[in-house]
């Protein structure tokens, strides 16, 4: 009786979550005010993080809340403030032809049929991963897949992140010198006090997430996005990199994650192993080394993507 009640309650919760997601997505797209649309999109990301928890995917929930909702939202809002005009009221629409509706209905039918025809129970690769956990050097399956079994994907993903920043920098104008910045920006002292209290805490949380990733939900991407959030906060408070740090030290920090990954991946080949095939005895340490470098670079890269401009080296250099 009690179990059945819990079951029904959980199903209602799932139904409510799913409906909230669909409504938020629709309102976010159809909002007359773009600012409102972006705020609704951030809310959508946070509700999606709840859905990940209901689907037993706490790693994805952490990444979604920090990157999907938080950083994407910050990027969207800062872009909106740079646009020629932020007003799109009523939303400019093209007429929706019959063809579009035919396409959507057909796609809905095909995707719906494909999902309904899948078996209700499927092991997938869960057993394979579980049987190989002893060889991975870590105790958390998602970290094992990300950094060991499918390390190649993660290596390429680091390269994608770096590539996005290179493309953004080559398109964006160089930042004004730091003196001009300081005059333009006035930050409330309360925000600055909060900033001083939050930064050490965020660095601590990032370090914890990095360390705990070896045996529980967490890891380099979640930790890196918390670091990036600290960087975004610093940028919003008017902090800029000093001129002497904005040159090659910054670039070194940005490539550190990818470089460390490639270096470790290649170094294990000296012992006769394949690319990214870590020796069993030191796999855990190597993964932590890669993750630490990756966390630092991910945080720095995402924060630089938020600032949107190549930092100036300042008058000193």
């Amino acid at each position, binding site marked *: 009786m009690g179990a059945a009640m819990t079951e029904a309650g*959980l*199903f209602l919760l*799932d139904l409510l979550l*799913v409906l909230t997601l669909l409504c938020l*997505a*629709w309102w976010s*797209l159809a909002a007359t005010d*773009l600012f409102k*649309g972006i705020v609704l*999109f951030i809310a959508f990301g946070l509700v999606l993080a709840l859905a990940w928890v209901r*689907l*037993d*995917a706490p*790693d*994805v929930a952490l*990444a979604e809340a920090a*990157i*999907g909702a938080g950083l*994407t939202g910050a*990027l*969207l809002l800062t*872009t909106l403030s*740079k*646009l*020629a*005009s932020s007003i*799109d009221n009523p*939303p*400019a*629409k*093209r007429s*929706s032809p019959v063809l579009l509706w035919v396409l*959507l209905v057909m*796609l*809905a039918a095909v*995707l719906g049929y494909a*999902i309904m025809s899948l078996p*209700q*129970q*499927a*092991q*997938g*690769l*869960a057993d394979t*991963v*579980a049987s190989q956990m002893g060889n991975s050097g870590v105790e958390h399956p998602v970290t094992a*897949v*990300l950094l060991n079994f499918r390390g190649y*994907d993660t290596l390429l*993903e680091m390269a*994608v*992140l770096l*590539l996005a*920043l290179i*493309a*953004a920098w080559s*398109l*964006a104008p160089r930042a004004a010198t730091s003196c001009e910045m300081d005059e333009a920006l006035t930050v409330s002292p309360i925000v600055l006090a909060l900033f001083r209290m939050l930064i050490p805490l965020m660095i601590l949380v990032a370090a914890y997430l990095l360390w705990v990733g070896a045996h529980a939900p967490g890891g380099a*991407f979640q930790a890196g996005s918390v670091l990036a959030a600290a960087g975004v906060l610093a940028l919003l408070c008017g902090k800029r990199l000093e001129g002497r740090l904005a040159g090659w030290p910054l670039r070194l920090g940005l490539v550190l994650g990818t470089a460390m990954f490639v270096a470790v991946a290649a170094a294990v080949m000296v012992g006769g192993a394949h690319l990214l095939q870590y020796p069993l005895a030191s796999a855990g340490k190597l993964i932590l080394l890669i993750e630490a470098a990756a966390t630092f670079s991910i945080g720095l890269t995402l924060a630089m*993507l938020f600032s949107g401009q190549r930092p100036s080296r300042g008058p000193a250099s």
Partner: protein
Amino acid sequence: MSTPLLYALAGVGLCLLGLYGLIVYAHLLRKILALNIMGSGVFLILVALARRSGDSPDPVPHAMVITGIVVAVSATALALVLLVRFSAATGRNQLDDDEHSP
């Protein structure tokens, strides 16, 4: 209806909503929002289907989705930089339709 199926179908719904928004709305920022919602729909389908294996969900799709979220934010950041440049160069926030251009 089982939980994974419910969420997977919601993922299909998000994909369709995103595709509709991508095609119908002209403002480029709305198109970027729509692409992100479409991507979230794909992630929802993947993670929902990973939940079918009972007590411990399949970790491989989870790792794929975490990778996907980071790649999505990279692509979004690049698209937004392009949008700012386009807006600064033309003073407009939407692209011309081929049929209406002079």
